[in-house]
């Protein structure tokens, strides 16, 4: 048996759990740049709000009704996720973190599921203030079906134990609500008269393989109770990391592009060090606004394949700056000018720091640069982001100019668990 635990409106629930006055208040969490509502508390859902609605369209409607919105606070959500996983890991022998608010739990051999599951839900709520739902079934896909049904259950849990319970549960789930069935597949299944998970489970295997490839076949096997997807306790390491952002206004200004490349190169190097990784491939790209069809389009990129992996800010920003300069020079040579909308600095070919290849006779000496980067990380951690930065980014880190580089957060919340300076004070 396998269980999936899912937090109810996780981001919004985090805000409610850290601010007691928000209990019972409709709360929403907004996406990057405060664009759309991405997580809603049950009270917000009761007002009729739904996910992905653009906040600036609906704020006038919901704010007078008492709705409180917060910009996303990903570091805090991640910290809460770690706490949640630690708590849940106490109850089960094996656990796989699946996403920021979901995890799979191995329930094999557990006899008293009907008492354990409510106990886990109550304990988690007591220790974190976050409401979770749990679905238990013989396979991962069936567990996803169970958790879908748990949404309609007042106990926030649903257990599928045997074949007759599988059959009943599958009839209650539409194909578009199933795990691993996207919109295209759901439309195709509807066209072919397959509207429920129960009908998909009895569809001949040859047909499923032909129409939905091996991924669909696995889903079908799992619906029949045959385990195809096992618990993965050790996640694959990251394959690539990227940073970048659209400019507030399109620009062809060389200095602004170079400053942005330094800024994002610096951020990328920070991220690499946080993950204890080095990059052996760096890619820097610029993009014009593809929706402005009446303007000249240009998507130049520069790719650097490196013999030795790097993660120090001096080298990463050097490559980023070099790439932008070469693009600008090329444009000057060709006597063209483009208005760029977005810059991206992207690292791939990632390796763990301690497996970094050393090249014999190479004059490369990253040791001092790495040490300097670490010291700067420590200073910035204690004194605040951007306290030590490159001179040409001094302006970027000034508060009134920050919005041009860092995502807009008009409704911030304190970083109670990830920043000493913002932790709550007891008087």
């Amino acid at each position, binding site marked *: 048996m396998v269980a999936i635990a899912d937090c109810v409106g996780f981001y919004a629930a985090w805000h409610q759990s850290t601010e007691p006055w928000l209990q019972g208040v409709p709360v929403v969490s907004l996406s990057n740049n405060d664009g759309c509502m991405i997580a809603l508390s049950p009270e917000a859902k009761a007002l009729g709000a739904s996910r992905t609605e653009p906040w600036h369209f609906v704020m006038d409607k919901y704010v007078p009704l008492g709705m409180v919105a917060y910009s996303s606070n990903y570091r805090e959500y991640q910290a809460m996720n770690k706490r949640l996983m630690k708590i849940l890991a106490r109850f089960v022998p094996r656990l796989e973190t699946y996403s920021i608010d979901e995890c799979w739990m191995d329930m094999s051999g557990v006899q008293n599921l009907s008492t354990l599951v409510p106990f886990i839900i109550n304990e988690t709520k007591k220790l974190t203030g976050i409401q979770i739902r749990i679905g238990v079934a013989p396979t991962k896909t069936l567990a996803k079906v169970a958790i879908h049904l748990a949404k309609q259950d007042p106990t926030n849990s649903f257990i599928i134990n045997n074949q007759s319970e599988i059959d009943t549960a599958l*009839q209650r789930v539409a194909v578009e609500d199933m795990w691993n069935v996207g919109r295209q597949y759901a439309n195709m*299944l*509807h*066209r*072919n*008269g*397959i*509207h*429920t998970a*129960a*009908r998909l*489970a*009895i*569809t*001949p295997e*040859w*047909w*499923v393989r032909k129409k939905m490839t091996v991924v669909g076949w696995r889903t079908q096997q799992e619906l029949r109770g045959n385990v195809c997807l096992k618990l993965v306790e050790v996640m694959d390491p990251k394959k690539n990391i990227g940073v970048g952002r659209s400019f507030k206004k399109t620009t062809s200004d060389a200095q602004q592009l170079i400053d942005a490349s330094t800024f994002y190169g610096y951020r990328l190097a920070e991220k690499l060090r946080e993950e204890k990784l080095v990059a052996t491939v760096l890619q820097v790209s610029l993009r014009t606004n593809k929706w402005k069809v009446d303007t000249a389009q240009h998507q130049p990129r520069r790719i650097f394949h490196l013999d030795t992996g790097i993660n120090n800010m001096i080298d990463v920003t050097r490559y980023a700056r070099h790439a932008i300069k070469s693009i600008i020079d090329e444009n000057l040579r060709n006597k063209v000018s483009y208005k760029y909308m977005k810059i991206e600095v992207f690292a791939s070919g990632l390796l763990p720091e301690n497996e970094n290849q050393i090249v014999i006779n190479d004059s490369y000496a990253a040791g001092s640069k790495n040490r300097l980067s670490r010291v700067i990380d420590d200073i910035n951690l204690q004194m605040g982001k951007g306290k030590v930065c490159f001179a040409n980014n001094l302006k970027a880190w000034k508060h009134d100019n920050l919005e041009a580089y860092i995502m807009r957060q008009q409704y911030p919340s304190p970083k109670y668990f990830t920043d000493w300076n913002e932790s709550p004070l007891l008087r």
Partner: protein
Amino acid sequence: MLFNTFNIELQYRGTLCELDIREAYTSDGTRNFEIIQGGICILLMMFKNGLWSVYIVDDLHPVAKQDTEMFVTDELIELLTQAIKTYLDCLTGNKLS
């Protein structure tokens, strides 16, 4: 023995439906068609002496049977007979007559 296989798309009850049609070979002048939806044969249609006979397949899984009973109506049968006739008469040399 399989004689011919083709598929049709119908606009039925406001939605698009895809159906596979298999014609089985018979020697007594009857034209037999199996209507397959989502990989499962749900209907048998026979054409003899200018008349159609239609049956829902007997040994369907209960889930498929329930869906099929809700799906098959006189309107669907009318659409299917027209579609099969149009396909065979216009697009093949194997006319339905």
